[in-house]
Each structure stands twice: as C-alpha cells, then as structure tokens.
C-alpha cells in the first residue's frame, strides 16, 4: 500500500473548496438573463382540476409567463416515466397511470404540480404565483395503505383498478407451505416500515437554458445520474435530441436516492427556457422538498418464519403492501419487488422462501428509492423475525443466527441471488467481542438499579449492491443497463484526467478514484483529476446509487487503466528500443530485461504524444483509453451491527449507549471514507427507528412537512460509533470491492428495535419508537391493569 494508494486513509481532495465556501452547487450558479420559476402546487390530495385562471398572474409585475399541463401537452412534451416494468402473478404488466409534469385533469397528492409561473425575479414569480386562481373539485383521498385497495376506496388512476399497480410474487409458495406444515415453531410478526423523507440538506434545484443559435438545451440540476436524466428527457419526454441536450450536475449536496429521479421541476424549467427565451431557474425550498421529493419505504408486512425442533430455519414467507404514492416515480416499481424480496434470505441458509407484494397507489407523494431501497425493508423483516424466533424458542439470538448462517460459498438462495463470498461468523464473532456481549448481563443489572431498562439488539444484514449486471437486471424488468463507463486521459506531461459516469455527492470520488489511479500508474495523487457530472465531458454513465461507484465505477476505471498500460508499454518499447513484450511496468517505472534503461510514466506519456520514436503505421499517437464495465454478479456486502440502549420507563426516553458495527465490504479503498459512510448510514437508520416518520392525515395533508414537525436526527440523538471491518474480497470485480454506502441504513433499524424489545421484554413497539411510543410500550402492562 502506498501513502495515496488503495487502502490508505487519504484526506479528501475535494474538501478544500467545501470548507472554504467555494463549492459550486446548482443554486450557486446564475446564468445571464436568468428568470425564476415558482410552482403552483395542489393544496388538495385528490381533486379534479375544473379551471386554472392565469390572467391575473400574467398581469402581475415582472411576470414573464405562466403555464399549465395543457401547454405542455400542446407542445407534445412527454410524461414522466417509470423505468422498471413489473409483471403481476398473473403475467399482466403493471398498471401505471399517466404522470404528467404539470397536472392534467386531476391532482393526486398535496404538492402536485398545477402550474408554473416565470418571473423576472424570484419575488416577482412568487407574487404572480399567488395570483393563479385554481378551481378544484375536491375528491375523497386515499391515504391509508392498508385499506387503499378496498373496493369502496376512491380510484386514483383509471388504469389501476382498486389502486393496485401490481400483485407480484417471488419464490415457491407450495414448497414454503409444506415446510411450514412440518415446522416445530412458527413465528409470526406484523411490521410497518415507516415512511421516510430523504431530506438531503441541499434542496433540489434546476436551471434550464436554451441556446437559440444552436437550438440546444442545457440543464444544471441536482442529479445523482446526469446521463440518465439526459436520456429520459431526450428519449422519453422529448425536450431535445440527446446530442442537443447537455446535463450538468455540479456539486450536489447529498442525494440518498432522492436525486436519482427525473422530476417535474427540471422537466418544466428546461421546457420553459425555450418558451420564454430566458434561462429559467428553480430552487426548491424545504417545504417543497417535503411535499414533492420522492419519499422512501412505507411498507405494511406480515411475515412468518418456520423453524424445526433443532432451531434450524426451514422457510420464510412474507406478504407486503408497498405504498407507491400518487404516481410512479422513476424506479418506484423495482424498490419493493426486485430490490426487496431477493434479500429475504438474509445471511441464512433458508431452503424455501415466498414473498408476495402489492404495489399500491395512494394520494401521497411518490415513493421511490431511499438509501438502501428495498434492502432495509427486507433486513427489517428478516432480522425482526429471526430475533423474535430466537426469543420464542429460548435460544440466544446470536447463537440462533450463527447456527443458521450460510457457511459455504457460492450459495444459491431460493430467491434469485447467488451469494459469492462472505464470512458471517467472522463478523459476528468480532462484533460480539467489541460489544462486550458477555458483560451485557452485568450492565443490565446496573441499569436496573437506576430504574432503567437496558436492551441489546442484533442486525445481521446482507445487501445486493452494484445494482448490476445489466443482463440480470434487464431480465427482471429494468429499462436500462447498469454497467459503468470511464475514460482515462493521460496528458503529455503525465498528469491524468479520469472521466467517470459515476457521480459524487458526498462519497469522495475525487479522492478515492484518484487513489486507484495513483497506485496503478505510480503517479502522485495531485497529478490526477476526476471529472464527473457533465454530459458534454463524460460520454455516458449510469450514475451513483446502490453502493455501486466503487464496485462498478472504479472497476471501469481499472479496466481503462489496463488499456492505458498496454498502450504505454508499446510506447516504452519503441523508446527503450526493446521488444514490447519485454517491457514491465511497476510503481510508475517502465523497464525491460533487455536494457538497463528505464522510463517514468510521464516520460512515456510525453513520448506517446510527440510520437518521434514510432511511425503512424506502427502505433497510433496519444494516450487515452476508455472502458465500460459490467460485472458478472451483484456484490453482497454484509455485517453485524449491535445496538445497546437504555430506556427510562418513566419518560420513554431511549438513549443509545453503544453501537458496534462490523462490516465486510471486501476491499477498502479509503477506510476513513468508508467509516464515514457507515456512520452516516447508521444515523439514517437510527432516525428511521427512533425519530422519523412521514405522517399524512386522512385528508392527505402531510402533517410532518417541515424540520419543525419531522424529526431529523441531530448530534445529541446519537452516540459515537465503534466501527470495524472484516474482509472477503468480492470475486466479481477486479478490485474486490463490495460497496459501503447503504450498509448502515440497512442494518440499523432492526438493531434498534431488537434492542428496544429486548429491554421491554415484549415485541409491541413499532417504528418510529418515539419517547411516547416507548413510554406506552414500557407501561403497557400497567395500563392494562389500570383498565381492568
């Protein structure tokens, strides 16, 4: 390991601009002649649009234009898409309603886009937007997931009878039923996976710009995947041909999934720029983010586990209703299906699994991928079931897990996935030791002396990451391939620019990707620049989500570097006047057993460009190579998290005392950054377990629509964490990377709830386990007695 190579905790290159206020986020960009967009949003969850009167708005000072869905339709602007086709049990394709960027005929959630007003200034646009008069005919709203499919419920989309988008399933129902029939123990649980609001601290923003001279469009936007945005805006929404549309995602302030999707706002800004002949900027405020950014999770699940007399798991079955909101967001359909049920084997050898999922429309904001996307929901099901089963059987929960762990690899689960590498016991053993599991009894006794209830909860999670290979996801319904691309441009002086299709919005790619280049080409990390987030610079890419940038994005760079080295060796052969096949390249030095002369990497780079030592017939000048990398399997990060907490039964206050995380991410490129990803993930998971929950009332009003009402984790809500690693390198990519971005958020909720239920001695608490909920659960028996 070199000081800046793979495995080194290199300080981040990008930090200089962020700590000095020189980052450039979308809202920091201003274009000459820029106008401002403000959206008129529906105050109703479900209503017919009878009339939209723009006349007063258009007369408002500084108003440059006001438009509705009719204007988009007149210009033949396509509707927003959902890019993953799911088929129901009966083979029928999912029933997707139309999703216009500006509502047509009906609005389907509070915050739905009714009209856009463009103003000379932001205040002018706001003033004019106030003057848009909308005549709504309010309809009853569907807001409760559990009853949304009932025949008496209002219809949200004509296409989807009983508000049902699909009734999907996976696994062998009959085999599972047979296994349950022969089981000694059957554990049954009902779970709510609470709805979350992503809340990246940078609100979404967009600037659309039209170049009339070239008839081309440019979009600056807060995107995790600018090329996918361009592809959808060009090929499906039809705003411009792909070669006439440039999408730039500059510094992006967090994403967590919510900035994957192609939303109404960027679509409308880009379209309106041509309409008013001015750049059009929209910057969402936090209220808009709460109302209309895609939310996450929101499942209701019944799950059962069958166990034999020896404590061996025989089968698992789950039945889930997944809330998809008022429209299908870009990847909404895949999250509760193929990103969920294939993970229901967890880390365990389970011979038979069956899962059925109903995807359901409600009059709420669209629901799509949020950090972990389906995998936290699966882990919550598996790890709650396993914990409760161990308690019912009377086994130590750690030992019950250990007994059922998959112990040899590769392992084919009954639900699609073929786990390629792992050592689950190694993680568990290390976690038990770091958490001082043996001392738990003494600590519980100490807490009890103070009148407090102490509990410990495990979560042994697995995820499928990389979200590739392309052929596999294509066979499951994905509309796109999920490889990644890279181009390595070596300059004549030996410095290197890497163009990557991955996008960094906090992950530190400018550092980690440069570490790979520094190590493989033997050049200082300062000589490497990572370029991303601009479709005019990077040819194509699939972007960053699903913990894929290391495993897939860096692998593409790795392969492009392979090609650079092959070409550089040819150049070195000519310069050293030795046969190409005798040239070796190590630590930045080209050498050959046929000569005692050597060349550095920059010397060879220069020779490649001046091309004095070879003819054009012998070798093409220059040193620039590209690669597309498509892995042969998903990656399978795994780990064991242990949460230990203390509850004050008098107040319901829950305080996390210790957190131990032992993760297996395969190869670590930069352990400092990996640990930071784990910390952040854990706190999002703790937020889900203890604090966060989006609440709609029966009228479909989002009552948790600000940071005053929706409890974000703050520094005092969490402790510092004990984070450690084990490593079984991933065999399906050249670096052995598994991915680390989502692990904490996947692991944490089950660990917290398992700890709370351990402390309380019963299973009756749901997420978010707020002080009130915990107090009620802690005092449940007392209340019952009082009632009697």
């Amino acid at each position, binding site marked *: 390991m070199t000081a800046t190579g793979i495995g080194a905790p290199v300080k*981040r290159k990008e930090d200089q601009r*962020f700590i*000095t206020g020189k980052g450039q986020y979308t809202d*920091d960009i201003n274009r000459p002649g820029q106008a401002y967009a403000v959206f008129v949003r529906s105050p109703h969850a479900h209503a017919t649009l009878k009339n939209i009167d723009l006349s007063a708005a258009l007369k408002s000072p500084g108003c440059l234009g006001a438009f509705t869905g009719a204007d988009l339709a007149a210009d033949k602007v396509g509707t927003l898409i959902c890019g993953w086709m799911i088929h129901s049990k009966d083979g029928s394709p999912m029933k997707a309603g139309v999703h216009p960027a500006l509502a047509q005929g009906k609005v389907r959630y509070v915050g739905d886009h009714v009209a856009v007003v463009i103003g000379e200034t932001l205040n*002018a646009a706001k003033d004019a937007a106030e003057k848009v008069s909308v005549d709504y005919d309010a309809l009853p709203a569907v807001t409760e997931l559990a009853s949304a499919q009932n025949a008496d419920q209002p219809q949200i989309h004509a296409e989807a009878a009983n508000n049902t988008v699909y009734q999907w399933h996976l696994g062998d129902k009959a085999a599972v039923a047979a296994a349950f029939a022969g089981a000694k123990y059957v554990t049954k649980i009902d779970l709510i996976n609470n709805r979350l609001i992503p809340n990246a601290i940078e609100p979404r923003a967009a600037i659309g710009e039209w170049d009339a001279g070239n008839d081309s469009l440019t979009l600056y936007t807060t995107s995790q995947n600018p090329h996918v945005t361009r592809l959808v805006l060009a090929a499906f929404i039809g705003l411009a041909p792909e070669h006439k549309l440039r999408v730039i995602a500059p510094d992006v302030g967090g994403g967590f999934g919510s900035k994957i999707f192609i939303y109404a706002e960027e679509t409308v800004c880009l379209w309106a720029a041509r309409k008013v002949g001015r750049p059009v900027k929209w*910057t969402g405020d936090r209220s808009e983010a709460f109302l209309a950014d895609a939310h996450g999770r929101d499942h209701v699940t019944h799950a059962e586990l069958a166990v034999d007399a020896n404590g061996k798991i025989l089968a698992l079955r789950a039945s889930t209703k997944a809330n998809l909101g008022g429209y299908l967001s870009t990847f909404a359909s895949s999250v509760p299906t193929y990103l969920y049920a294939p993970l229901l084997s967890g880390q365990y050898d389970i011979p038979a699994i069956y899962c059925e999922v109903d995807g359901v429309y409600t009059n709420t904001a669209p629901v799509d991928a949020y950090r972990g996307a389906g995998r936290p929901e699966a882990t919550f099901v598996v790890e709650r079931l396993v914990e409760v089963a161990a308690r019912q059987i009377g086994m130590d929960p750690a030992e019950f897990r250990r007994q059922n762990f998959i112990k040899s690899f590769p392992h084919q689960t009954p639900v699609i996935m073929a786990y390629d590498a792992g050592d689950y016991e190694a993680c568990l053993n290390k976690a038990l030791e770091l958490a001082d599991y043996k001392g738990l009894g003494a600590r519980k006794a100490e807490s009890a002396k103070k009148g407090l209830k102490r509990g410990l909860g495990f979560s042994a999670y697995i995820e499928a990451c990389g979200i590739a290979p392309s052929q596999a996801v294509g066979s499951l319904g994905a509309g796109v391939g999920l490889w990644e691309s890279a181009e390595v441009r070596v300059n004549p002086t030996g410095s290197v620019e890497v163009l990557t299709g991955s996008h960094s919005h906090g992950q530190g790619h400018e550092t980690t990707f440069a570490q790979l280049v520094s190590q493989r080409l033997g050049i200082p990390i300062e000589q490497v620049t990572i370029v991303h987030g601009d479709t005019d610079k990077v040819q194509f890419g699939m972007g960053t989500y699903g913990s894929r940038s290391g495993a897939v994005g860096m692998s593409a760079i790795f392969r492009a570097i392979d090609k650079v080295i092959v070409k550089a060796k040819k150049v070195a052969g000519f310069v050293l006047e030795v046969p190409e096949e005798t040239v070796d390249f190590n630590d930045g030095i080209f050498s050959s057993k046929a000569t005692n002369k050597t060349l550095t990497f920059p010397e060879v780079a220069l020779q490649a460009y001046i091309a004095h030592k070879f003819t054009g017939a012998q070798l093409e000048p220059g040193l620039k190579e590209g690669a597309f990398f498509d892995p042969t399997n998903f990656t399978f990060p795994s780990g064991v998290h242990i949460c230990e907490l203390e509850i004050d039964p008098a107040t319901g206050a829950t305080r996390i005392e210790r957190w131990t995380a032992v993760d297996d991410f395969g190869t670590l490129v930069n352990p400092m950054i990996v640990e930071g990803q784990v*910390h952040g993930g854990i706190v999002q998971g703790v937020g889900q377990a203890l604090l966060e929950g989006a609440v709609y009332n029966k009228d479909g009003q989002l009552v948790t629509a600000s940071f005053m009402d929706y409890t974000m984790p703050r520094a*005092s809500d*969490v402790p510092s964490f004990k984070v450690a690693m084990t490593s079984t390198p991933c065999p399906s990519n050249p670096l052995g990377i598994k991915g680390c971005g989502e692990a904490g958020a996947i692991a944490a909720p089950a660990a917290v709830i398992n700890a709370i239920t351990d402390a309380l001695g019963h299973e009756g608490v749901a997420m978010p386990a707020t002080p009130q909920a915990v107090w009620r659960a802690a005092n449940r028996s007392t209340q019952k007695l009082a009632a009697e």
Partner: protein
Amino acid sequence: MFSLFRKGKKPAEPASASPSAAPPAAAASATPSNPTTTTPGGRMVKINLTVNGKPASADIDARTLLVQFLRENLRLTGTHVGCDTSQCGACVVHLDGRAVKSCTTLAASCDGAKVVTIEGLAQGGKLHPMQEAFREHHGLQCGFCTPGMIMAAVDIVARRGGRVSEDVVRADLEGNICRCTGYHNIVAAVLAGAAAMSAAGTAKPQAAE
C-alpha cells in the same frame, strides 16, 4: 445552545438605515445582473455593512434576508439555504461576533453590522483551525451543511472559552443538521478544532465591535 436563535441587534429603523460612513465596495455596490432581491414595487432600503472585513452597501428590497443579500448581491455563495424554518443551520454566519441564522435575519436589520461568512474565516490564505479540523477528521461529505457547521463550531468554542466535551458539542450543535456524516466525525472535528483554537489563544468570545 440557544445562541443561534439570538439576533445580533434589533432591526434598524428605516429612517436610520443609511449612515453611509464607510465607502461602499465596488463589487458590492454594483447592482447585480440578476437582482433576485429586488422586486418591482417592493419597498427599497439602503444598507451599509462590513462583510468579511470589506465594506458593502446596497439598495435592497426591504424583504431581503441576510442570506439572500450575501448570496445574490455579494455572490458569497458559501452560505447555504437548507430549510425555511430556521432549523438546519446551513446558513449560519457571524453577525457582530455571534452566530446567527442568516435565513431568518433581515438584511435591513444588519445595517452597520460586521458579518463574517465561511469565505472570510481563513486569514491571509491560512485556513482557520476549525476548517483544518473538519478536513483532518473527515467532518464533511457532501459539503452542503459544512459552512454552517464550521461557523457554528467556531462560535461554540469561542462562546465556551474552549471548554467543550463531546456531550457539550453534541448539545450545542442542536441548530445544525447534517444528513451525511452521522455527526461522529463532525464531533471529532469540533473537539480537535477547539483544542487547536485553545492552543492558538482564539478560543474566546469574538469582539463584537
């Protein structure tokens, strides 16, 4: 821990809004090309203040928030807006030596004040110890909350004379939300920055004059 909610001074009376003692800085006095902070028909006020040691003056819509003035008029875009309820702290700047949320401070109320933003924290090309600490301890990921975090952290350490512990830092960061880091490394960074500030003798309340 409630310092972030205190205002530096009472809003200035409109009549006294233009003492104009300091010569306006050229960059700041010019009307910006995209005057988002002016509105046809809006009531205009003139303000003079010092931002990062330089005089700044402008005629602004009376509704203009300090953060808008900094971002739109002065193009100091390091100060961010992450919410609309004064909760997230991405907009924290120092107003007359105290941390305030510039998203809920009217620019007109800052007439005559001294404002320091993240861009003004480094002195003579040398990073402030708190900036160094955030880099050293990986106290940031996406960087969006970072300017507010650093400005709040400097205020916490100064206000408490460098006497901070993990519990104190966690409690005092109540007004700043980070969605990326889980706070673990931010807390480590603030403690390290506090030690560096104490060593440098700067862990004391900032001069408010």
